[in-house]
């Protein structure tokens, strides 16, 4: 186990555009941290710089308080699971898992026991003689994890390891991955563009965009208290409603925007007139599309109603909807950053 730190780390592929732009992060021992962002946000580049596969243009990487920026990946005592799994195609599963041990000159007698232990950890002990091409996607992913685990590294780096699995398998793999990490307690950095994975797996989530950290926090924090309009618009499906209100941008989550009957009204609720234009049924919820009226002009917003809440309005009709005052977020129009509430 180890801490991981980046200090003002940057990567420029061209002079104008930074893939990673001066990121400072501290990851304590044993944490499961997720780098989340859209494709091209720099999350994989950041991970590869921590691994040593990319050399930073500026800044440093520290593992366990030791600067490792100049060290080759093999000297950092890290393990990585790649998006493609990167198994050695010509080797059996056994040899794949044994490779890191042999490369690190483990005693010959020690290797079979360790391989078996790692294989059993992921339930792949019966495939040891097979070649990667004879395995399913889920099995390959387990081999990649077993290969990463076998030499008990200080840090695990995972680059979208679930993205090649089908949706059903992904859910169970997510669960297994988290249990496994809890059990071994190794510091883990996980890269994904999938917010469900990020919210479900991470002790903390780092939201990245255009090479910069937008917010770092526990999953609930980044969801409930987004630091800026990017985080507000990126997290949540559908994302936060963002509407223009003069000098500020007003944000609220669709699930907080409810018909007046569905909520205890009091001093802490703000009323809006909502004209419903479309309703989408999604099974457990409904998405209600419409226009917010009055005040500073119309704005397109959406409400998400659990199917247990009746919708007391027809298409084209107006109705009173409310939002709890605490659920209203305000952002600066210029910078997009969170600001103090303003009177509406």
């Amino acid at each position: 186990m180890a801490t991981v730190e980046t200090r003002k780390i940057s990567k420029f592929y061209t002079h104008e555009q930074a893939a990673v732009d001066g990121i400072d992060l501290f990851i304590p021992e044993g944490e499961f941290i997720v780098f989340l962002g859209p494709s091209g946000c720099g999350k994989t580049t950041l991970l590869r710089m921590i691994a040593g596969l990319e050399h930073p243009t500026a800044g440093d990487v520290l593992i366990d308080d030791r600067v490792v920026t100049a060290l080759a990946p093999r000297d950092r005592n890290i393990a990585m699971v790649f998006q493609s799994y990167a198994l050695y195609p010509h080797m059996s599963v056994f040899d794949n898992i044994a490779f890191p041990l042999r490369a690190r000159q483990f005693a010959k007698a020690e290797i079979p026991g360790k391989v078996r232990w790692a294989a059993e950890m992921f339930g792949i002990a019966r495939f040891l003689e097979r070649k990667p091409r004879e395995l399913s996607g889920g099995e390959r992913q387990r081999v990649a994890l077993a290969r990463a685990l076998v030499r008990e590294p200080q840090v695990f780096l995972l680059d979208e390891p679930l993205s090649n699995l089908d949706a059903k398998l992904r859910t169970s793999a997510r669960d297994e991955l988290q249990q496994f990490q809890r059990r071994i307690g190794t510091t883990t950095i996980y890269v994904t563009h999938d917010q469900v994975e990020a919210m479900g797996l991470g002790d903390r989530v780092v939201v990245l965009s255009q090479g910069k950290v937008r917010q770092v926090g526990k999953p609930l924090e980044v969801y409930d208290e987004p630091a800026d309009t990017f985080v507000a618009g990126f997290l949540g499906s559908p994302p936060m409603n963002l509407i223009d209100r003069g000098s500020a941008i007003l944000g609220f989550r669709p699930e907080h925007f409810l018909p007046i009957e569905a909520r205890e009204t009091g001093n802490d609720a703000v009323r809006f007139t909502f004209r419903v234009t479309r309703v989408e049924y999604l099974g457990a919820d409904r998405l209600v599309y419409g226009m917010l009226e009055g005040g500073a002009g119309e704005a397109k917003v959406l409400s998400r109603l659990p199917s247990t809440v009746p919708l007391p309005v027809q298409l084209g009709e107006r109705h009173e909807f409310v939002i709890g005052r605490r659920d209203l977020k305000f952002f600066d129009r210029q910078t997009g950053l969170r600001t103090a509430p303003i009177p509406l």
Partner: protein
Amino acid sequence: MFLAPAAVLLLVFFMHPTLQTIWWSFHGGIGLEPSRFVGADNYVRLLTGDPLFLNLEVWPPSGALVNNLLWLALFTLSPLGLGLSIAVLADGVRYERTLKAVIFLPMVISATAASVIFRFVYSPDPTIGILNAVLGALFPWLEPVPWLGRRSVVNFALIGAAVWIWTGLATTVLSAAYKALDREVLEAANVDGAGPWRTFWRVALPMLAGPIAFVAIALVINGLKMLELVLVMTAGGPRGASRIIGFTVYWEMFNNSRAGYGSAVAVVMLLLLVPVIAVQLRRVGREER
């Protein structure tokens, strides 16, 4: 039905000449149409009574067959080794494209032209032969070496020229194959603790097995068929010391006008090629599956 055109072409231009060559190899006589049936006489003489083809009386054994074994070993391994080294070492280097273009250049000029060039390179006169000029400059006490005129070095000189030509093919094929390797697999080896050496031998090289086999087979086949280089540079000399099988086929048929005897040499060449072709067919079959 749709195979018919291909089948006809194959019969007319491939099966017929092959069968005719085998038939002729049992005939004797002078001229391009052998006349007299001699049974296995050609083969008996070829393997026991023709010191230019196989001479087991001396040590080390000599003759075209033995020379060809030397060719197979050096002409197969050298371009492979050189090509692989260049492909891997030049990968991602600034002048990679230029370098590979220069190395490939000999492939596109005709073997005859290359042979002429190398006759100059190997010339014993240091004012013409650049090899002797360079050696003379580095080691002034050395006498110029008649590379193509000395029995002990002539085969190595010829093979050197062939390697110069064929390294381009090996480099091009292996470089493309190396670039097509999954980078993440090589990176995984690095993260897993393997140094460049282990990564190359244990990961990259096994993954290149297919292209390496392809180049090796191409080289073996061309080494067995080789003719122009020998014909233009030494005509098999000095005193038959640089003869190889492909050259012997040509020389017996067209220079000595012994079509029957030349055919027998060609059949020996065919027999040597059969296992190589079998290996290649098996490999292709495996890849298609």
